[in-house]
């Protein structure tokens, strides 16, 4: 049935499919002027978008993930800690080499930044070995004064790193990358 020509165009459905997938370029007059071809092309596009809708509907109809499936997944994930490189800490004893992982520092930075009201920390990068330059991206809750929030994050991160690590901090830069709104079911406090 795919060998049949559509309308008077002289093109088969397979060729029409190809034409559609090429974005109808270069334009073929015989297809563009043929009503039946146009209707088939429109149907194909429509069933394509309906297919995407169908998968979204499947997802909406089964919105919950099985708890045992989730715990299996998280068990595998927790096994693979993203430690990153080791960063040396200052040590009083010259024979001891103390290090902290990037992963641990990032965890501290996230917690410190998140503790500022209306702020969520995104990415945290750590540059340098002896003197660490910390860059944190944040998203602020819509309505939160951006400058105040950024400065509070800078202070909080700096204080946390001084308190919990012996790192020498060259700088803490805060980049406001995003603004978020409270999710409908989210906690507004």
């Amino acid at each position: 049935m795919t060998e049949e020509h559509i309308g008077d165009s002289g093109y088969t459905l397979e060729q029409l499919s190809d034409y559609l997938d090429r974005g109808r370029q270069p334009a073929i007059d015989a297809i563009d002027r043929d009503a039946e071809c146009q209707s088939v092309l429109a149907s194909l596009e429509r069933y394509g978008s309906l297919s995407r809708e169908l998968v979204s509907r499947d997802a909406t109809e089964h919105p919950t993930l099985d708890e045992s499936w989730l715990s299996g997944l998280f068990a595998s994930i927790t096994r693979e800690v993203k430690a990153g490189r080791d960063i040396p800490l200052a040590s009083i004893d010259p024979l001891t080499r103390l290090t902290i992982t990037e992963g641990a520092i990032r965890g501290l930075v996230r917690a410190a930044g998140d503790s500022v009201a209306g702020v969520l920390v995104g990415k945290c990068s750590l540059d340098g070995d002896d003197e660490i330059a910390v860059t944190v991206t944040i998203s602020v809750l819509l309505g939160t004064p951006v400058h105040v929030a950024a400065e509070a994050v800078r202070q909080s991160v700096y204080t946390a790193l001084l308190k919990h690590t012996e790192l020498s901090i060259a700088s803490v830069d805060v980049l406001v990358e995003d603004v978020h709104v409270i999710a409908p079911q989210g906690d507004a406090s």
Partner: protein
Amino acid sequence: MTDLSAATDALLAERAADGDEIAFGVLVRRHGPFLRAFATRLTGSAADADDVVQDALIAAWSQLENLTEPAKVRSWLTSIVSRKATDRIRARKTSSELDENLAEIIERGPENRAIASSQLDALSAVLSGLPEGQRQCWILKEVGGYSYEEIAERLETTVAVVRGRLARARATVVTEMEVWR
């Protein structure tokens, strides 16, 4: 405890790449149902879909650092799911027994098409009734958005075969959906 449910995909993906398991968990709960639905349509089996999505998410966790556009984390996850799903499809090629779930989908297929309550139900039945190879090509093309070349590579076949399967799938879909036009 920080409430991450308001966070954007991009922020969650960045945090997850930095090792935040909680942020990854929020992404999983947010997109898991879609990924599972996609994998189910692709593999034709809910059980396979669960395995495939789990494998894909474990792989995603270790590759998050390579995600260049965190805002597109969902389509990135979808592409990992489609890779894992096609691996699974190839692996079971030899033992092509029909999963109960797929059999069930097909059962309520063609005969009931006329009384399908909506166009989506009708399309669902038509797609489920397609031969496996055609259905996979259709889902990868129309839902996954992949090119013929990518689909051929994933299914370890030729572009000509993919083109042929898609054309046949399209012919069937267009014909059987005629009543809904």
